[in-house]
């Protein structure tokens, strides 16, 4: 098999032997996991509560242009006189929307493909893996670039594209897990008792195959946020929603005169991605009993 999980490592993590319960709790106990969860939570909170948290509408021009961070404008204002703090908060909302919806798509597609390929094997596996490989080969960022440039900016198509192109990693990991689990004795036990295929897949295999996938998801989503930002940076963001990438790209022109315009959106991206990565790592570690 070719390229596997960038960060999830190659070998199956599912050696559920003697694993203690409450995986998440355990991953959160590590400093990395705690910080990661904290940051991720911050992202979610900011995203959901943006209208309450943000001082002003992110598009409203009601401040002096290019004012450095101050009491009145904690993150300063941009050239048009818009409050950057509000921008960054609403940016979180955008990142959250993208991240969440892509994650949803990835889970659905990735899990299904992974389960089927792993469980049925044979030509089903071959076919699915070819497709997976194909999708994996298409450089996501590049695809997004072309699609947005041609169909015009917009979260909907971005989410759609990223969702459709981001699942292979998950599918591969799940597949590896399923392959490892398929002939586990507890699965055979279920079959001996005449369990239906559905029950075996959903009740016996999935719960054991999913966690490593979920851990990986954090990393995938992190990448997605980065891509969204980079697109925004190339000026391909949706102008009707505030996005960190767009803020950053508008800031480029002011790099020398208004450092804060680049700093805060950049920081926001970094922290959000960092958080998700930390969280993903922590869970992966807890799963594979690393550290």
């Amino acid at each position, binding site marked *: 098999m070719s390229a596997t999980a960038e960060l999830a490592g190659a070998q199956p993590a599912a050696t559920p032997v003697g694993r203690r319960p409450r995986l998440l709790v355990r991953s959160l106990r590590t400093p990395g996991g705690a910080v990661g969860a904290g940051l991720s939570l911050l992202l979610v909170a900011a995203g959901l509560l943006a209208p309450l948290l943000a001082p002003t509408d992110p598009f409203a021009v009601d401040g002096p242009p290019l004012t450095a961070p101050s009491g009145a404008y904690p993150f300063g204002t941009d*050239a*048009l*006189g818009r409050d950057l703090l509000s921008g960054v908060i609403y940016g979180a909302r955008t990142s959250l929307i993208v991240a969440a919806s892509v994650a949803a798509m990835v889970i659905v597609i990735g899990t299904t493909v992974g389960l089927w390929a792993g469980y049925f094997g044979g030509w089903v596996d071959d076919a699915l893996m070819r497709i997976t490989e194909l999708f994996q080969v298409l450089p996501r960022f590049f695809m997004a670039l072309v699609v947005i440039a041609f169909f015009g900016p917009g979260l909907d198509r971005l989410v759609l594209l990223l969702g459709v192109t981001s699942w292979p990693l998950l599918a591969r990991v799940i597949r590896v897990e399923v392959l490892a689990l398929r002939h586990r004795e507890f699965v055979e036990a279920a079959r001996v008792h005449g369990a239906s295929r559905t029950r075996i897949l959903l009740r016996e295999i999935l719960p054991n195959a999913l966690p490593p996938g979920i851990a990986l998801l954090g990393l995938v989503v992190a990448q997605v946020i980065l891509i969204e930002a980079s697109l925004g940076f190339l000026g391909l963001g949706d102008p009707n929603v505030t996005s960190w990438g767009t803020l950053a790209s*508008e800031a480029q022109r002011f790099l*020398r005169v*208004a450092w804060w315009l680049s700093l805060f959106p950049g920081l926001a991206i970094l922290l959000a991605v960092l958080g998700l990565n930390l969280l993903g790592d922590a869970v992966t570690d807890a799963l594979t009993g690393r550290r």
Partner: protein
Amino acid sequence: MAARRLVALAGAAALLLTACAGSDNEGNETRPDARSSGAPAKGGTLSVALDSDPGALNPAITTSGGTHTASELVFSGLVELTPKLEQVPELAESWEVLENGALYRFNLRNGVTWHDGKPFTSADVKHTFDTMLLKLHSRTAASVGAALSSITTPDPDTVEFRFKQPYAPLLQQLDVTEAPILPKHLYEGTDVAKNPANNKPVGTGPFKLVSYTPGSELRFTANREYFKKDLPYLDEVVMRVIPDKGNQVVALEAGEVDWLFGTPGPDLPRLKSSGKYDFITTPLNPGGSNCIMTVSFNLDRPLFQDVRLRRALGTALDRDQFVDRVLFGQGRVAEAPISSGIPFAHASGLKGMPEFDRAEAERLLDEAGWKRQGGGTRTSAGVAGVPDGTPLAFGFTHFPTFSAYAQLLRAQLTSVGADVMLQPLEPPVFADTVFKARNFDTNIISYCNGVDPEIGVKRMYVTSNIGPVPFSNSSAYRNPEVDKLFEDARTTVDPKARTQIYRTLQEKLVQDLPYLWIVETEANRVFPNTCKGFTPSGHFAEAASCTT
């Protein structure tokens, strides 16, 4: 060693040069002070930043700004336009306007040779016009092409342009930008678009192309046989492609480039205060000259057919904010539909241009039947052609590069209860959507008026110019009177009369408000003050020199 020989010559040349240098600096708003006087140094390489890769280097078959900025050093026009738009001889030594403006005769300069050594003749001029300019150079084709009846070459040194009716603006359209002359002997009988010379241009201009590395750089070397005496001073010009304006400034400050065609507003104050740089403020943009950022209304849509709404929106726009926060002072609020850069046509002190007054705007909107429900978006109540309860929401289409305008406009209109959706579209898509599909509510376009209303103004208003052609009458404004007035203006040769016609025209336009004229934009060429002798465009480096 070549350089050394030139240095030897320098002393001898010095005297003659001051004059030229001086005259060339005429147009500089910010005059390089003492430093610019004295003998220009000879030799050296000038490094120039380009916004984008020119792609091709044939200025006669496109109006693409990239191609022109990169290739005009190589070519010449019959006439040269000074920054003040006076016509001075270039390939044409002199000319006469006959038959009250229906016939122009040009006497060509003798002994001019192409970079490949072949002599330049009237045949080259005719061939260039017939096979390229009148076919593929969209501006010239659209204006001159429409009016011209024939070009004749009585002898190798003479060219005659004959028009169906008197044609006033011709002399403004013969410079290297609007009508560069290309060598017949390289293009005759070939497929123009595919001709290799398009990437290895051969011209009569001050510099010869040495190498072109697409996407990276172009290198030019001085044309020592240039027909203007002792020009150019520089040995070499190198053009680097640096897409990001911010990075251009960075490169300038790092000393990697010596000339930017435009200075990003945010950096302007810093660069100015640094005292290391000189500037040439000019109305010339790559797209053309005397450009006005203009908002169009799609008059085919019921929503915008009520002039009161258009005026209300116009009144809601604080155009000073555009000058301060988008242009950073590189431009001025537009006082009239025609740019102040065309003095004889610009109507100063025009009555009825919408002026910013939020309260007034709110009042007008209420009056027009757009009522506020609470703080949010206004909705219609008894607006003709609009079902009641329709929210005052519309799209605003623009080039991605104009997003700052779009965002400021959105903010300003939102505050009077309009809901604006931005639709940034890359130029080709924009042209497609706006002019062919006409699928837009409002948009913003940088309409470049050019040096004569005939070139860049008329196209915006005449009924005949509605339709698929990009950057035509975007609002689809239909007014027979206006069409008539433009027709008169074209055929009237007496300047005074023309001025009067254009004034009446503009009065009509501000009544109807088919467009909102926001700001006149200008660019600041910037260069280290160790260099001097630039002109804003065309042969901008023809008489440039740097001391290091």
